[in-house]
């Protein structure tokens, strides 16, 4: 930021922030985001999604422009920024979709297909709220943080719940909450004003309580003897695990399906996290192993595959095929790993990308069609049958009932997505356990040494070939495991499901979560796979948002949402040396 100048210079800064905000809003309109979002309101008859977006942009930019003033208290500046934004947007609306320029009539819609009457109506509707948002941005600093933060958290929660209100309603219905209650909170696809107030109050109060008392609670915990703390920690983990196990029951079939999708990506993310996060090798063709796992499973189990002994039965079942698939995938990891051992950094990224594309093109070609089905893919992959169901029934007849009852209700129950969830959860749990144990092991430390400096690592006696191949092989195994479940989940697989975008998706979730961080992978998968899955109506802009998220994360928070300890320390150490002043963490963010 420029140092504090005279009054005029400051006002010019505010005006600039306002102009940028207004320009951004018009841009969002032309890209079509506002119109698509306009189909949704957050609070019924009060505020819609486009308005929330517009006000947030003006608020954020005005607040940033105000920050040089004493503690950000700058009502005039904020209002000015808001006003300029309104003038810019208003100017765009006033000029309209058709105008004359130098005697030539120009129809904006010939070029910008989104310059529709709806867009102008949307912009017109919230135009005059923009100065208020600016004013608020300048004035909000007068409110003490102890009140400001809970109120802000409450608003954020209202927007989130409002966005997901149709899903909240579905879950409430699934759990037999009386429809009369639900109707009071949620109507159509938005919160009712009453529901919004409730959400706001609950979250604001909770956040307020944490702001006021959180420090004391933490101190009290820290004062406990270590043994007790460890016990409490274990209890918390057990509680979380119970919560996760109960999830499919609570959520119902549709949302379990979404969770399954998230779970598959967590599995792949954990694998890529080993390759990229631990060992520092950027793999852009990671989807290849996913595809290989899926295809091997399909070929081994589908009755339509060339290996099937008869037209109505596959060669073997899921559980028999699983080890074979894993061996195939691990071998592939090693085979693809050997030629690229010498390559570093960017070259590695491009070669792996090339491998991924080659595998997809081969799967799609007529050449391998007799084996892999070409562009039509492989069909009729049998669903996964829970293991040992027969054994369970036998035991039940013998009278050892209780644990088996739980087992059958939870895992071998009739609802398919819910059942699959436990299999995926099991896979994720194993993968996470392996990753956690590897991280601190000799191999894990070798990977990290490799990531920091290959030559030094080699000088320290690390076997580069072995270490790198282990990373490829283990990463491939996780991805392949995910693939083996993917096929039976969807019944059929097509080469189109294994494009480069999947690789980028996995990479994005690892990055957003925080490279090298296992909790980060889960958070990243929930945010980048789960959320878009719930907001399908905006699917058109999914990748657009991905792009923004990737660039934004790299610019402002390269360590990720849940950074690993090492990454956090590293980036802070860099700050201290002044190498990366851009990433300086501060209260301003």
């Amino acid at each position, binding site marked *: 930021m420029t140092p504090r100048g005279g009054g005029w210079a400051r006002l010019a800064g505010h005006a600039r922030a306002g102009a940028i905000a207004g320009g951004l809003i018009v841009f969002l309109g*032309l*890209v*079509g*985001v506002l119109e698509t979002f306009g189909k949704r309101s957050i609070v019924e008859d009060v505020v819609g999604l486009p308005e929330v977006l517009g006000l947030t942009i003006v608020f954020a930019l005005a607040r940033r422009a105000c920050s040089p003033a004493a503690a950000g208290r700058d009502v005039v500046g904020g209002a000015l920024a808001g006003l300029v934004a309104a003038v810019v947007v208003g100017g765009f609306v006033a000029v309209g979709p058709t105008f004359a320029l130098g005697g030539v009539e120009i129809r904006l819609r010939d*070029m*910008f*297909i*989104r310059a529709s009457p709806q867009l102008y109506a949307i912009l017109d509707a919230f135009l005059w709220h923009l100065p208020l948002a600016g004013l608020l941005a300048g004035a909000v600093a007068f409110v003490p943080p102890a009140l400001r933060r809970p109120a802000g958290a409450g608003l954020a929660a209202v927007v989130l719940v409002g966005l997901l209100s149709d899903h909240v309603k579905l879950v409430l219905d699934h759990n037999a909450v009386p429809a009369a209650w639900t109707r009071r909170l949620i109507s159509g696809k938005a919160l009712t004003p009453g529901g919004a107030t409730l959400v706001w109050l609950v979250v604001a109060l909770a956040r307020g309580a944490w702001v006021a008392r959180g420090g004391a609670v933490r101190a009290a915990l820290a004062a406990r003897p270590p043994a007790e703390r460890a016990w409490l920690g274990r209890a918390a983990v057990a509680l979380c695990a119970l919560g996760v196990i109960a999830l499919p029951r609570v959520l119902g079939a549709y949302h379990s399906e979404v969770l399954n999708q998230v779970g598959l990506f967590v599995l792949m993310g954990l694998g890529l996290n080993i390759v*990229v996060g631990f060992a*520092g090798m*950027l793999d852009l063709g990671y989807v290849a192993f996913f595809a290989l796992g899926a295809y091997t499973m399909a070929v081994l189990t589908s009755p339509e595959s060339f290996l099937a002994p008869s037209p109505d039965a596959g060669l073997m079942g899921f559980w028999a095929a699983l080890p074979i698939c894993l061996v195939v995938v691990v071998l592939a990891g090693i085979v693809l790993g050997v*030629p*690229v051992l*010498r*390559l*570093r*950094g*960017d*070259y590695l*990224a*491009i*070669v792996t*990308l*090339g*491998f991924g*594309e*080659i595998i997809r*093109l*081969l799967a*799609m*070609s*007529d*050449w391998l069609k007799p084996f892999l089905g070409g562009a039509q893919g492989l069909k009729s992959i049998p669903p996964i049958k829970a293991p040992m169901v027969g054994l369970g029934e036998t035991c039940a007849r013998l009278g050892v009932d209780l644990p088996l009852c739980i087992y059958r209700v939870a895992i071998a129950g009739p609802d398919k997505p819910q059942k699959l969830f436990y299999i995926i959860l099991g896979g994720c749990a194993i993968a996470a356990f392996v990753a956690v144990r590897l991280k601190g092991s000799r191999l894990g430390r070798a990977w990290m040494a490799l990531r920091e400096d290959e030559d030094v690592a080699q000088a320290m006696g690390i076997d580069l070939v072995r270490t790198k191949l282990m990373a490829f092989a283990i990463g491939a195994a996780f991805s392949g495991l995910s693939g083996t479940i993917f096929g039976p989940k969807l019944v059929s697989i097509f080469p189109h499901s294994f494009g480069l975008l999947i690789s*980028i998706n996995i*990479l*994005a979730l690892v*990055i957003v979560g925080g490279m090298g961080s296992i909790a980060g992978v889960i958070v990243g998968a929930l945010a980048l796979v789960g959320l878009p899955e719930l907001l399908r109506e905006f699917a*058109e*802009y999914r*990748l*657009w948002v*991905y*792009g*923004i*998220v*990737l*660039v934004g994360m*790299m*610019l402002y928070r*390269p360590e990720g949402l849940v950074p690993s300890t090492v990454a956090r320390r590293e980036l802070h150490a860099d700050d201290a040396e002044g*190498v*990366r002043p*851009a990433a300086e963490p501060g209260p301003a963010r």
Partner: protein
Amino acid sequence: MTVTAALAVLAVLVYGPFRILQAGKYSSENWLDFIVFGLAQGSLYALIALGYTLVYGILRMINFAHGEVFMCGAFTGYFAAAALDGSGFMDRHPLVGLLAVTVVAASTSIGVAVLLERIAYRPLRRAPRLVPLITAIGASLFLQYTVSGLYGSGLETYPDVDVLKGDWQILGIGILKTQAVVIAAAVLIMLSLYAFVQHTRTGRAMRAVSEDKDTAALMGIDVDGIIVRTFVLGGALAGVAGVLHALIYKQVVFNMGFQPGLKAFTAAVLGGIGNVPGAMLGGLFLGVVESIGPGLFLEGLGIPAAYQLKDAIAFTLLVLVLIFRPTGILGERVSEKRA
């Protein structure tokens, strides 16, 4: 081990052509057509590859969004061409019209490239190497879907230019006029670029910065300015390539930049990244191999519908070159340790 592998690869590479030439499925005219088409395609790759190689030489980063810079140019070129065609100007002054379209396309591409550098890459110049690469992937997605949102996700068709219909007889070979124009324009541009880099002050400064940024700064070179100029140069080449691409393929769509971008990067690596003549040679080489490859190498091995594997050939070539000669055909001008 490496030698055995190389011999095995070589054996396959010889056996395929032997079979197909023996079978005589294609006449020599067919082969010539393949080669000319490959050269036209390759000169597009080369123009885009130059953008990669220039930026990589200076910043040591893969500007993954460069394919999108190319796409943005082709797309705005379409609007200019459609407007000129609609008013009848294109029919009256086809050359001026084409030039205007090219200027519009190149300016857009330059604008996008410079904005990219300013917003997405400059703040990250000292960050770990993976960081700008990931930013570039993000920028690529953002640009693609911004264009799809602004202009729609359908195919748009460039208007036909009457002068460029039909073919010319050159040395007794019939060559499509569009292909001839593309090859000629690309060669001309590449030669002037080479002269620019070798002989002008800016070109010298660019080479100095790519050699060693800090020392160049000490010598009084405005490093930031040179980096911006590099992006301008890369953007202009990509914009021109966008229009030339449209001359051959006629159509533009929001995700058209991805595949050529990837191929062009492959071409840059083939020629030796950071190496300007290398990118030109790599582009032409890749274009030709891709064009004759399916017929020459794969059909002889009895692979049906071999043209489907055209892209696979390009990537296999990339992998093979990186394994057996990681510095590319002409040798790279970048040392890993200095990066």
